[in-house]
């Protein structure tokens, strides 16, 4: 952690120097130090990535730079933030009066937040919101401000800028909104742009577009960027320098290549070892468990072993899905006639075999979650057949359908939302046992709950605690224990690791794989994250707009992708390797909407087999254009 200011020549004096910054929050248990003694510099025109997992203090640091912590209950208790907008003078933002800060915010330093859904005001048009900044800081009149706003929208490559000016935020997609946010942030040619996880809530292809835009505009306008993220892939693609934060402290700072090539701090090494790397299993047909480094008492420790798993049994499928179609009615006339439908799933067919993991990948709106929910009987299918162990679900009696809910279990994305906050986790885990009448003796149920908790790596005494007393990773373990309680044969994991920090994610993936081996479980692994898919799955099905466009073994899909959408998806994944060529395939275009007027059915792709077990949709001209 060398102090990089010492050897700086005057012309590249840092634009922003953070010195020994400490931030405290008052809590019921007394003040909590979220940021401890953090120092770093941002050079003009360069990108500094601040990396860390949840709770590392990276977001608080970024808020403290703008003194926005004043509004979130935080207090800067020490240090200084020197900002040098020009040669003349440096301003210490920690001491600066409010009037000075207002002048700087949005003008010299701009910020983009994670949630493009919530950071735009829903009652104003896009044009008015951008114009507001311009009128405030540049003193333009409404007409000029709108003209500038249009220019800005074009700059972030939004098509149809004229029309967009009069649209409201809810009429835009997530990616478009984030571009509007960037346009607003860049409205006054800021010297410094702070981007707090700007692409985390977006799909990979949209993320790739946004990253490109930020990079291009940065080169064009010479803006320095502080990029807050937890994704090492994004760091490798964007950053010049990296600051790694852990538990409120800066543990390492170095140029990006050095961080990846020779991480010094144990935490950085643990973090990098947990990052799933696309392409790491090339040539390996089976899923492979790899050890994870965890920090135990300040020392990194390897947990688990390298282990190729051969669990799948391709004799007879456990689940057969044939031409499954699920549509939802939206938009009705006054008289109740349906005018539009969401074509969530269209004639999807696939099989899952015992002990096999089938990954269902696709972006938001591709219908992958709807398939999972249809299989779990949470949503009624419109047509098609689902057979579980040879029995048609539609022909099952009420009682059989109930038993099916014991055999198929579902793990949800958000471990914070999927446990009842009013019950102990022991109660939640015992519930499937009680509901299905698997064990009737209280003592035996309790023993079983303790056993399950141990299986997922928790302690039996945790049964008495409430969900809010656990961290995200622990909660997801509880959810897994709950899903296993009824002794299922098939587990549907719906984005079950997407909301977790990478190190936790790696542990949960390992846990899922271990359980698969031990209990011979089948998984339907629904996700958008290609790197996790590579590690865990036997076969992969790629979904686009409600249909499977490519299905095959993982090796076939990753090493020999045939469909243009699969290729696009794979190339959009940020690679955690700064040595790789940065300029990649340009991705343009939004994901089209699956909502269609009644009567306009989508065309069903015809599939053809390119090699044994590897099916690809024959591409129509229209799709090729869109993809």
């Amino acid at each position, binding site marked *: 952690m060398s102090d990089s200011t010492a050897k700086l020549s005057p012309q590249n004096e840092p634009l922003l120097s953070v010195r020994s910054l400490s931030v405290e929050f008052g809590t*019921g248990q007394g003040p909590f130090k979220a940021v401890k003694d953090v120092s770093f510099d941002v050079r003009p025109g360069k990108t500094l990535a601040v990396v860390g997992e949840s709770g590392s203090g990276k977001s608080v640091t970024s808020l403290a730079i703008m003194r926005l912590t004043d509004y979130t209950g935080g207090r800067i208790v020490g240090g200084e933030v020197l900002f040098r907008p020009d040669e003349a003078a440096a301003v210490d933002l920690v001491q600066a009066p409010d009037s000075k800060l207002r002048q700087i915010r949005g003008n010299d330093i701009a910020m983009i937040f994670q949630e493009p859904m919530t950071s735009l005001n829903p009652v104003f048009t896009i044009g008015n919101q951008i114009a507001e900044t311009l009128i405030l800081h540049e003193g333009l009149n409404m007409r000029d401000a709108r003209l500038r706003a249009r220019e800005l929208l074009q700059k972030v490559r939004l098509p149809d800028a004229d029309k967009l000016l009069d649209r409201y935020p809810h009429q835009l997609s997530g990616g478009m909104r984030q571009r509007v946010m960037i346009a607003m942030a860049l409205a006054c040619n800021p010297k410094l742009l702070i981007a707090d996880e700007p692409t985390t809530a977006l799909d990979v292809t949209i993320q790739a577009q946004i990253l490109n835009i930020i990079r291009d505009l940065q080169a064009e306008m010479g803006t320095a960027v502080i990029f807050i993220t937890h994704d090492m892939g994004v760091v490798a693609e964007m950053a010049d320098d990296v600051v790694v934060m852990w538990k409120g402290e800066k543990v390492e700072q170095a140029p990006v290549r050095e961080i990846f090539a020779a991480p010094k701090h144990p935490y950085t090494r643990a973090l990098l070892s947990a990052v799933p790397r696309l392409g790491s299993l090339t040539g390996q047909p089976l899923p492979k468990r790899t050890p994870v480094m965890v920090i135990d008492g300040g020392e990194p420790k390897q947990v688990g072993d390298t282990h190729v798993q051969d669990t799948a049994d391709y004799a007879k499928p456990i689940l057969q899905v044939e031409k499954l179609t699920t549509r939802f009615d939206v938009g009705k006339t006054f008289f109740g006639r349906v005018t539009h439908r969401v074509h969530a799933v269209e004639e999807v067919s696939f099989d899952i075999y015992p002990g096999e993991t089938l990954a269902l990948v696709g972006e938001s709106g591709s219908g992958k979650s709807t398939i999972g929910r249809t299989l779990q009987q949470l949503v009624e299918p419109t047509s098609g057949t689902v057979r579980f162990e040879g029995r048609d679900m539609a022909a099952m009696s009420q009682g059989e359908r109930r038993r099916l809910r014991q055999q198929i279990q*579902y793990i949800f994305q958000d471990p914070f939302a999927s446990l009842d906050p009013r019950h102990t986790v022991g109660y939640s885990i015992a519930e499937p046992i009680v509901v299905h009448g698997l064990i009737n003796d209280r003592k035996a149920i309790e023993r079983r709950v303790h056993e399950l908790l141990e299986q997922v790596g928790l302690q039996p005494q945790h049964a008495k605690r409430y969900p809010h007393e656990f961290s995200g990773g622990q909660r997801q373990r509880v959810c897994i224990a709950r899903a296993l309680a009824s002794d299922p044969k098939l587990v549907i994991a719906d984005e079950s690791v997407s909301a977790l920090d990478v190190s936790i994610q790696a542990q949960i993936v390992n846990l899922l794989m271990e359980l698969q081996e031990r209990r011979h479980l089948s998984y339907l692994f629904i996700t958008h994250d290609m790197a996790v898919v590579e590690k865990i799955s036997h076969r992969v099905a790629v979904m686009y707009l409600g249909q499977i466009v490519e299905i095959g073994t993982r090796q076939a899909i990753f090493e020999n992708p045939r469909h243009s959408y699969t290729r696009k998806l794979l190339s959009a994944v940020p690679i955690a390797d700064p040595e790789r060529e940065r300029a990649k395939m340009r991705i343009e275009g939004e994901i089209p909407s699956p909502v269609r007027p009644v009567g306009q059915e989508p065309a069903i792709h015809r599939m053809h087999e390119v090699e044994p077990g590897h099916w690809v949709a024959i591409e129509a001209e229209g799709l090729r254009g869109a993809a």
Partner: protein
Amino acid sequence: MAAAQAASSSRSRFKSLELVLGILFAGGITLAVLLSPILFPDGGESMDLMARLIPPFQSWDHILGTDPLGRDVLARVIVGGRISLTVGVVSVLGAVTIGTLVGLVAGYHRGITEIVLMRFVDIQLALPFILVAIMFLAVLGAGIDKVILVMIVTQWVQYARLVRGSVLALREREFILSSRAIGVGSGRIIFAHILPNVLGPIVILMTLNVANNILLESSLTFLGLGVDPLIPSWGGMLADGRTYLQTAWWVSVFPGLAIMFTVLGLNLLGDWLRDYLDPTGQTSK
């Protein structure tokens, strides 16, 4: 650090203080009211025209003074609690039971059940309370049971609305979905998972309505629609004492204090109960 710890421990002390004061106020008054047949066998009705309007704290026989007919104010306040507490508590319990059930069913099942139930609720809300009360009491006659019935009939809709709203938000939550995915039946989802999560706001509305209904009873009595005006009740005594407020404040102030302490006690108990039911609040204290 130390200051903050002191603050947090004072907060937890305040939490148990809520419970202690709540039991002290609401429980003390309830106990006195329950014991009133033993304490005041005459029911506070014996008059002594020679001892009219004695100010409070002057005579051991009449600690809180006497009213214009020479009746003991203390006796009447405690005896009056029978009507007031019965009306306040029973009406709220009745309304909350019906309203919560309807709200749970309507919110959970949606569809035609919800439409029918909620339109009924809307119609009910559109009718002015006094109109319903007059109609009811004109047909059924006056009496404490009818007063309670009127209150239940007019107030259950508040709970139904409140509960349905919370259920609508809850039923889309992932933990409800995840229970359904596990195979939990509707009845268990409603009563084991949804109900505990809507209790907080219900408890708050209940405590507010107890106070409201104690006063409402006196309005109805004042209009001649309620209980026999000769039987003492807090609301009735407040109304009676109004004319003497200039000369004999104690006639109306003491029943007023009784209402105040009951409501305060119930509010404190309600706050405590809400926090007690919420495990997240419990540990953050």
